[in-house]
Structure formats: C-alpha cells, structure tokens
C-alpha cells in the first residue's frame, strides 16, 4: 500500500503526486439495495484512475458520490487533505470537480461556445447590475473567460463548430463538447463517465488521445469509468474493479489483469 503523502512513478515515467481525493469506507444504500458496499480507494494528483466493473456494479453511483450528487449512507470523503462536509453538487463543482455524463447532458438550446462558457461560470463573479449594463467588470470578465474558452476549443479541435447549436451536432462531437465544457472549468479532478460509450474505433482513438493530452498538458487528475477494456488498460495508471457494489481489485492494469477475482467477475465462474 502506498503512503498518502508520497507519490510514485508510473511505467511510462510520469511522476504522480500525493492523495487528492480519498474515499473511506463508502456505503450507499437505496432502501434495501446496497449499491456501494464499504469501498475505500484514493485518487492521486496527476494520475488517470479508472473504475471498472460489470453492469450494475455501482460505478456510476460511485462517481455520483464523488461529484456530490449522492450523499453516502456511511463513510467519508477526503478532498485535498480535509474531510468534505455534506455538500450540494454545485458546491462540489465550485471546489474544482468537473464531470461529463454517461448520457450526454449538454444544454441543447445553446451554441457550442455558450455551452463551453457555462463551464467557466464558477470563475465568474460579476454582479447582476454590472452584467445588465455590459460594462466594467462584467465585460472584462466575459472577454477574459472567452479567451480561456477559446484555448480549450483549440485544444479539442472544435473551432469550426463553435457557433453551431449543440442540438445539430452528431454524437461523437457532442461528447467532445461535453469534455470541453468540463475542461473549461480548469478542474483539479475531472470525472469522465464512459467517455467512449457508443463511439467507433476512430472516435475512441481520438478521445483517448485527448484524455492523455489533458492529463499531460494540464496535469489534470482524471477518474474515468469505461467498459472498453483495451482503452482502460492502455490509458489508466491504476484501476479499481467493482462487482455487486464491492471492491474486488485495485492496482495497476497488470496487477488487475492477473487478479483471480476480477477474472471470475468478468468471465464468470462455475459453481458446481
């Protein structure tokens, strides 16, 4: 087990820092259903952490606990070294946790640019009157943030669609716009819920490249859920494996691949 303050070096030579977020004995119940059963793991600064497991294992629930959408029935969440009190999702977002969704959750009535700009709103503080007059602080803020947003738009190569309403875009591009919106927030922790679901091989390759680039260029810590094993094993530094709400494996992709419980969960095991 790793010490919480020390980092480690990955196989490809990247230096990973201390613990950014730690989940301690998280249990989540919906009535009698136990979605998450006593799970602990940590996410370290600068790493790409994957959460995998068969359908219904509780991965999305775990992500929802991290982003504050669900409050765990038991257990504690530590963020940047201190215990996180019970919070509303928007407060968690303001602490620097951004996410994308399994089913795309973009604002369909707005243009790509406006959608990505919404990612900046945790950084915008001008008052109603200043905004109504479009003068002084509100205007400066708008322009500064536009510049930051344009950088993200350049980075994800969606310049040509920036003024297109999101409703008109194809699926793959919507996924990318959603990533752009999350990135625009300059999060310290980026949560990706199945970023490659429903994509063809080429789109998956593009998206993988973007995820690696984000991690590499901005040093963003990423936690992702994904079903494509090839992608997970290639991208992630460490993997948590869940099954029926329990943690059955945790470690580097190679360790997890060799874990008998994990193999059983994925391939099934005979009970005779």
């Amino acid at each position, binding site marked *: 087990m790793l010490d919480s303050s020390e980092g480690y070096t990955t196989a490809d030579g990247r230096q990973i820092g201390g613990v950014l977020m730690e989940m301690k004995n998280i249990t989540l119940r919906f009535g009698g259903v136990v979605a998450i059963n006593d799970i602990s793991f940590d996410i370290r600064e600068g790493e790409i952490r994957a959460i995998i497991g068969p359908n219904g294992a509780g991965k999305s629930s775990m992500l929802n606990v991290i982003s504050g959408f669900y409050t765990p029935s038991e257990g504690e969440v530590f963020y940047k070294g201190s215990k996180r009190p019970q919070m509303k*999702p*928007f407060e968690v977002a303001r602490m620097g946790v951004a996410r994308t969704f399994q089913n795309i*959750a973009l*604002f369909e009535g707005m243009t790509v640019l406006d959608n990505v700009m919404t990612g900046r*709103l945790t950084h915008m503080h001008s008052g109603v009157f200043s905004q109504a007059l*479009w003068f002084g602080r509100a205007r400066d803020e*708008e322009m500064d943030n536009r510049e930051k947003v344009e950088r993200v738009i350049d980075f994800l190569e969606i310049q040509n669609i920036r003024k297109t309403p999101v409703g008109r875009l194809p699926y793959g591009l919507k996924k990318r716009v959603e990533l752009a919106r999350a990135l625009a927030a300059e999060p310290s922790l980026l949560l990706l819920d199945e970023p490659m679901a429903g994509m063809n091989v080429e789109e998956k390759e593009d998206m993988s490249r973007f995820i690696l680039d984000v991690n590499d260029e901005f040093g963003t810590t990423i936690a992702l859920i994904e079903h494509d094993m090839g992608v997970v094993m290639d991208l992630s530094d460490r993997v948590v494996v869940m099954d029926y709400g329990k943690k059955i494996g945790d470690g580097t992709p190679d360790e997890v691949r060799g874990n008998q419980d994990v193999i059983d969960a994925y391939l099934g095991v005979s009970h005779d």
Partner: protein
Amino acid sequence: MLYRTAGQFKTSYTADQALFPVRQDAILLGVILVFAYLIFPLTASEFAFQTLLIPILIYALAAMGLNILTGYAGQLSLGTGAFMGVGAYACYKLITIFPWMNPIVAILLSGVFSAGVGVVFGIPSLRIKGFYLAIATLAAQFFLVWLFEKWAWLYNYNASGAIQVPNLDIFGLYVSGPQAASVTQYYLVLGVVTLMSILCINLTRGNLGRTWKATRDMDIAAELIGINLMRSKLVAFAISSYIVGVAGALYVFMWKGAAEPNVFDIPLSFQVLFIAIIGGLGSILGNYLGAILIVGLPVVLNLVPSALGLPISSAMVEHLNVMIVGGLIIFFLIVEPHGLAQLWRLIREKLIIWPFPH
C-alpha cells in the same frame, strides 16, 4: 445581397461579442429607432397612439419580462397579469403616499414590489417544474386579484374599487392622467421600454443568461457544473417580475388611466403568454413581433372593411377579427413552432447566403 457578411472580419473577442457583429443588423435597428423616435411621433394620430403604439410597447415589455422567466430560465408562469397588477397598485400607492415623487421614479420603483412578490411565489419552483409550477403560479394569479379586490387600502378606500390615475407632471409637463398628451406618454413608454430592452439583451447574452439557459435545458447537469439552481431560479423570478411590474405600472399610468382588479385577471396573463410564445420563447426581438401580431393586427383588421367600403356591421368585423387572428396564430405556430423570432432568424440566414441555396 443586402445582407452579405463577407469581408466583415473580427479581430478581437470584443468585436465578436459585440451587440451587432453584422453591420446590416445595426443599420436595420437604426432605421427602426428613427421610426420609433421621430417618424411615428410626428405623424401618428391620437387613435394610433392609443390603440397601436403605446399598447404594443407595453405588451412587448410585459412579454419580455415573462420571456426572461419562461423563455430563458424555463419556468412556466401563468401569473403575469397579477404581477402586472402588483406593479400598477404599487405605483398607485407610491404616488398617493409620496405625491412629490417623480412619476418615472415611481414607475421604476413599483417594479421592486412586484419583484418581491414574484420571488415569494417563485419559491415553489425549487421543488416543482413544468405544468405543476404553472398551476402554482396560477394560485398567485387568483390570490393577488382577490387581494386587489378585498384590500381597500390598495385603492385608497374609494367607492368604485378601481384605481384612478391622477394628473402627474414632470417639471410642468403632464405625463399621466386626463391632461397628459399621448405623445408625451408615448415617449415616456418608449424610453422605459428601450432601456429595459438594452438591460435584458445584456443580461441574456452574459453569464446570467447562460446560467438561466442551462437551468432551462438540463437542470441536473446545470447543478453539477456549479450552478446554484435556487439562486438562478429566484433571480429569474425577481428580474422577470420586476419588468412585468414596470409594464403593469405603465399599463395603467401611461395607457388605461384607470383599472379595476379584474383587468389583471387571467385573460391578461394568457395574452402576454401568447405574445411570448408566438413571438418566440428565448428571444428579445420576439416579444415585439408577438405584440405587433396580437395587439396590432386586430386593430388594423378592424379598419380594413371600412377602408375598402365593404358593408359589414362592426359586430361582424369583431367576429371576423377573432377568427382571422386565431387562424394566423395557428398558421404561424405550424410554420415555425419556435415563434416569429426564429422565422426572422431563418430568413436572415437565407438572406446572408442568397442567391445560393446553402
């Protein structure tokens, strides 16, 4: 051809986010403003002021207020009429209690009261959405109109139960009451509406506008990217009710001259809602187009038979009028469900690339 945008390059984000990135739009608006500020007031008759110009502006303003709430923030409201009433009664009480107060200040202040009432009746929106919220605002509608009738203090205990606008002047120039000239009232209304439009355009294109649209389009995602939904909705209720309240004060003080409680009953709410829907939800321009269609068209249609010399009785004209306007509303909604503003947007897009199809 007239709308060609080629050659208009933007070299800064300020230029790209300017109010009129396309030069032709600015010219078009300039022409409209010249008409509104110079040509109409110089040429319009008393009849045109009272039945077309002033009411269209006031209804457009009320619809703009509703549009902030329903079109931008996505909270359906059926209480617009009552919130207009709050504005009107607040203005009436302000003028009674502080007779020295400048009428313009009174009108702008009266919106503050409707904003407060709007926020109170907006609190259910934190829990309920869509049609259920509409029902909750309907409760506001009935309750407030009942209050206007029963609370005699609001109409200064006069026997008729109606509010009567006194003669008010600004530096000796009468702006309301029987002695006010229509052209003065028109300019005052136009000034307020222009100001409100500018503020609304700025709000809706800025950060607050994006917050509202995010709340409207997908509230869960909005919350998870850091929007405080409660704040976003209540601010929308406050600003929307403020504008609606100012429209209500203008409605009584600059146009009707007197009002009974039932003026603010649900037909008014529906009329404003229809203007917003037909004009286009989520658009500022649409409110004007909708008001022209719903308020202006019946007046013009009324004049047609006599102008053509057709021997039709005035009652018949009324009936025909209702049918034609109703038909047109359905026609426009079928042609473009997103309202007249969207229709204009599409026409504009076509004009830019004309004569090529795409």
